[in-house]
């Protein structure tokens, strides 16, 4: 444990140092401009202390982001529109809805592809093509089109999240359902087992490790999709909207706090999938 934590702390410390240096460097221009306008000279130490305390820095310092994050999480009632917990909840619920839809779609398509040659030939190319469309470009259009049809709120966001998350689940499940080798399939043939029995008794259990690996990718992709879907003008709720309103008003600290909020949410989601994976595989005897 000690051995693994030391390198991590070293890297973390290096990042913080580089970040502080970057903040001083990027924010110094504004400090010098202000000083020049006021007609005063600034010493190096005055410059440094100013760059780390600006209200709207180009790059907020780590402690400013930490404070912004703390204020957003603990400094507000969680029902307040200024609370990051509130916005994270909005994003989280759309992410989960989209992830659920995407997972179900991915699994169903994978089952179809593995059992039908026609679906293998027809669905897979389209699934791959779907992922070459830049979601950033079409998300606003999708949101606007759906809004004009009267579909607002969580559903449009969930659709975009599902669009991003079904693909890794599809690819992982196809691979997992095809994981059993020829010998294992032959064994079932010697029992004269039906396709359905082969699916439930062999293919599905064999695909579990692949499913969980792709669920981790899928849930992170669903979060990205939700945040992207919250960016288009008009959205007022969610971490994406927080990011956007922050950039409208030059509230860089708010942007960074929202970014870190999103990162923490992503880490928690992946962690939860990982825990469910450990428990499930252990119960099934597939992990030691």
């Amino acid at each position, binding site marked *: 444990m000690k051995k693994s934590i030391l390198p991590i702390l070293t890297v973390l410390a290096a990042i913080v140092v580089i970040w502080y240096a970057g903040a001083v460097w990027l924010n110094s221009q504004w400090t010098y401009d202000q000083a020049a306008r006021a007609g005063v000279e600034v010493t190096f130490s005055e410059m440094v202390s100013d760059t780390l305390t600006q209200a709207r820095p180009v790059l907020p310092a780590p402690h400013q982001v930490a404070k912004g994050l703390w204020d957003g999480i603990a400094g507000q009632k969680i029902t307040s529109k200024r609370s990051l917990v509130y916005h994270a909840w909005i994003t989280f619920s759309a992410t989960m809805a989209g992830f659920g839809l995407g997972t179900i779609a991915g699994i169903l398509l994978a089952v179809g592809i593995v059992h039908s040659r026609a679906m293998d030939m027809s669905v897979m190319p389209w699934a791959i093509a779907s992922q070459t469309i830049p979601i950033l470009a079409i998300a606003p259009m999708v949101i606007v089109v759906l809004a004009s049809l009267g579909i607002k709120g969580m559903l449009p966001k969930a659709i975009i999240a599902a669009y991003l998350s079904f693909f890794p689940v599809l690819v992982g499940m196809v691979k997992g359902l095809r994981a059993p080798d020829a010998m294992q399939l032959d064994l*079932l043939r*010697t029992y004269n087992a039906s396709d359905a*029995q082969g699916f439930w*008794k062999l293919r599905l259990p064999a695909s579990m490790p692949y499913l969980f690996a792709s669920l981790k990718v899928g849930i992170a992709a669903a979060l990205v999709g939700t945040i992207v879907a919250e960016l288009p003008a008009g959205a007022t709720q969610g971490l994406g909207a927080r990011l956007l309103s922050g950039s409208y008003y030059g509230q860089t600290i708010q942007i960074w706090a929202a970014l870190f909020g999103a990162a923490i949410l992503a880490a928690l989601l992946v962690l939860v999938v990982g825990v469910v994976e450990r428990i499930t595989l252990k119960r099934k*005897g597939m992990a030691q």
Partner: protein
Amino acid sequence: MRSPVIDAKDLNLIFETNDGPVQALKDVNLSIERGDFVSFIGPSGCGKTTFLRCIAALEHPTSGSLTVNGISPEEARKARSYGYVFQAAGLYPWRTIAGNVKLPLEIMGYTQADQEARVEKVLSLVDLQGFAKKFPWQLSGGMQQRASIARALAFDADILLMDEPFGALDEIVRDRLNEELLKLWATTGKTIGFVTHSIPEAVYLSTKIVVMSPRPGRITDVIESTLPKERPLDIRDSAEFLAIAHRVREGLRAGHAYD
């Protein structure tokens, strides 16, 4: 008059490959009687696996006739007439040993109570009583292979087909399993088709030894063993045993063109 359990007449099987046709079986004629223990021996690529797979209807002959229990291999497969043991144990890692042995029983629709009783019976046949609740990775390779044999014995098939089941195991484990397999054959009365690379193994186990040779895969000799049914391990030092082993070796040499 009793008809043979397995009857092959002028059997040919040609695989169409990218490098042209491969004749895996050429003019194979063989009949196996009920209760026989038949070993197939020969160098790699002589069609041992292919012949066993034809019996199991996992492969289809190009010409000739083949019957299993008097019916076509396909019908025999549907009637679940045989258990098949592959070279690798191929246990499902997500099932316990008992769960693995239950697999064919679940597929074939045995009742829950019957499943339990059969699992217990076959696990004690292969000497794995105490290991029902273990997962495959908790067992040695030899124990895993015994579990896979138990799985093939769990349902009422009167034929047992085994394709180099002990090929991946060390000699000491192999000797023990050979001895156990003979006991099992004696208690169950099944007809066994057994593929091996090892001359002593073939001679020790079999009532009938089929010597094969490659390119094209064909039978070069069929030896009826004169050894008694009761065979302690040290029978392998007897003159009779060595004489049969010698004949097998001669058959292998004759079939093998050293060109």
